[in-house]
């Protein structure tokens, strides 16, 4: 594996420590190519937003970052996603997808708690990492639920089913579940699209609080949301990365007219 940090066009936009580098990543659903030569840096302990019109490949890109596509036969990656400081190419077939997922957590568009008590949901990621000592698990569960701003609402019903929670609470539970094992990176695919404005606001607050300590990549359709919580924004169109820059730049002085058109709502 190449140890040197690759020099790619996106490097022009690096202005801090980088957690991962996506380099010429292409992705195929069987025969159908869904990502074309995507390159951009993922800054350490900053939030990066992926925006773009429906079907442009945001979810596909996000799910490549934790090898979710490996679950279904026929999918194929080309190119590299170098994770630092380990300097491993996490989309290489030689790298065990299970190990990648132990490093990188994910929150899905639709809340998907397990059919188990609230406590067990949050503890699941610890269990799978071999952390089973009760005092440690208790502490991590509480901390994760507090981080996800859910602790006060559930602390008296930790042993009850997660399905008794509202949609917004379930989504925050899923965030707590992803946070409990302290992932190196957190991927979120439109985490608030199924929620009402109040629950959305809570989750956005939470993202803002997490950003200084966790590396975040978030897909969103909501321009205000991208502007509020992210430091960097990547604009995609039909499987290509059109523009990557600081969020403030993307939203004030984008270089590409397509980006401009999209964020001002002229297409997409």
């Amino acid at each position: 594996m190449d140890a040197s940090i690759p020099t790619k066009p996106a490097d022009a936009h690096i202005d801090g420590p980088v957690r991962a580098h996506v380099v010429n990543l292409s992705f195929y659903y069987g025969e159908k190519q869904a990502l074309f030569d995507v390159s951009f840096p993922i800054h350490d302990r900053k939030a990066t937003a992926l925006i773009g019109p429906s079907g442009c490949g945001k979810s596909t890109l996000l799910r490549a970052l934790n090898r979710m596509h490996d679950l279904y036969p026929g999918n194929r990656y080309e190119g590299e996603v170098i994770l630092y400081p380990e300097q491993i190419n996490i989309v290489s077939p030689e790298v065990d997808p299970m190990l990648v997922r132990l490093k990188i957590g994910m929150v899905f568009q639709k809340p998907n708690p397990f059919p188990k008590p609230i406590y067990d949901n949050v503890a699941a990621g610890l269990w799978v990492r071999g952390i089973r000592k009760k005092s440690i698990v208790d502490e991590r569960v509480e901390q994760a639920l507090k981080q996800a701003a859910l602790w006060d609402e559930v602390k008296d019903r930790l042993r009850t089913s997660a399905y008794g929670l509202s949609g917004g609470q379930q989504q925050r539970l899923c965030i707590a579940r992803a946070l409990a094992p302290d992932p190196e990176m957190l991927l979120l695919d439109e985490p608030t699209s199924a929620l009402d404005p109040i629950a959305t606001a809570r989750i956005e607050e939470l993202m803002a609080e997490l950003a200084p300590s966790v590396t975040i990549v978030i897909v969103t359709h909501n321009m205000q949301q991208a502007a509020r919580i992210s430091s960097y924004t990547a604009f995609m169109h039909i499987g290509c990365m059109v523009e990557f820059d600081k969020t403030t730049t993307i939203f004030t002085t984008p270089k590409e007219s397509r980006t401009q058109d999209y964020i001002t709502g002229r297409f997409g």
Partner: protein
Amino acid sequence: MTTAELSGVSERRANYGRLVASEAFLRRRAITGNVIGVLLFLAAALSVLITAGIVFVLLQESILFFRQVSILDFLTDTEWTPVFENPRFGIITLVSGTLMTTLIGLAVAVPAGTILSIYLSEFARHRTREIIKPILELLAGVPTVAFGYFALFFLTPIFQTFIPNLSGFNLLVPGIVIGIMILPYIVSVAEDAMRAVPDSLREGAFALGFTRYQTAVRVVIPGAFSGVTAAYLLGMSRAVGETMVVAIAAGQQAKIALNPLEGAATITAYIVQISLGDLPHNSLAYLTIFVAGLTLFLMTLVFNLIAFWLRKKYREIY
């Protein structure tokens, strides 16, 4: 829809907008709906009536039986000799035979069925599944009498070579064969339940770093809990009611079955045996067919109630 509601349609016509073809269309639609509703109700009512009829006959004849034999003797006596000079009616004998073969059958079918269902729903590729499932369905289509002779003439001699004190008629081999017979039912229901668990749950588990095996055991099975339990209980009901295998290969001697290596009669085997004889239709021995049947019915009922209760308690909502 009642006619009163229908007549209201014309007054509210405007509210339906212009895209309703005609009032006659709405009326026809309501009539078709009603006719189908009535047909469905009749079908449902028929199945309830048939069940009620069976229970009625069982109860009626059993009451005649219990006029002559005390319930206490029936439940506590340790012998079952209805056609003897001095008849004894201890149902525990037959119940123990039935429980023994059922338990052996479940001991085979529950682990094998669970593993096979997990394999089919979580690990097997599409092609493999398309090969294994029809084979299992074929297994379910084999006549039970064939399974009976398979147990008696093929499996028992093989088992006797390494279990020397295994009787020619025994409970072990029929129990195992019952396990093989109920396997397709368990797999079919359990696998359906597992596949009904949405992929979003699996993805959630994989995203945390679960392996396929961990996902199956920790997420899919809990998610499919009620369906998997239903599968076991369906298998159990079939094992309890299985007749030909035990009638052929377990022997017909009614006694308390403690040793699976020896033969003993089950409830079903007894019913076959006595029905094939030519007992006078109002004799006490003849009535035992119905009490035995009632006992079988009650056992199955209890299992189904447990299944019902479990499903209610652990109903999954995704």
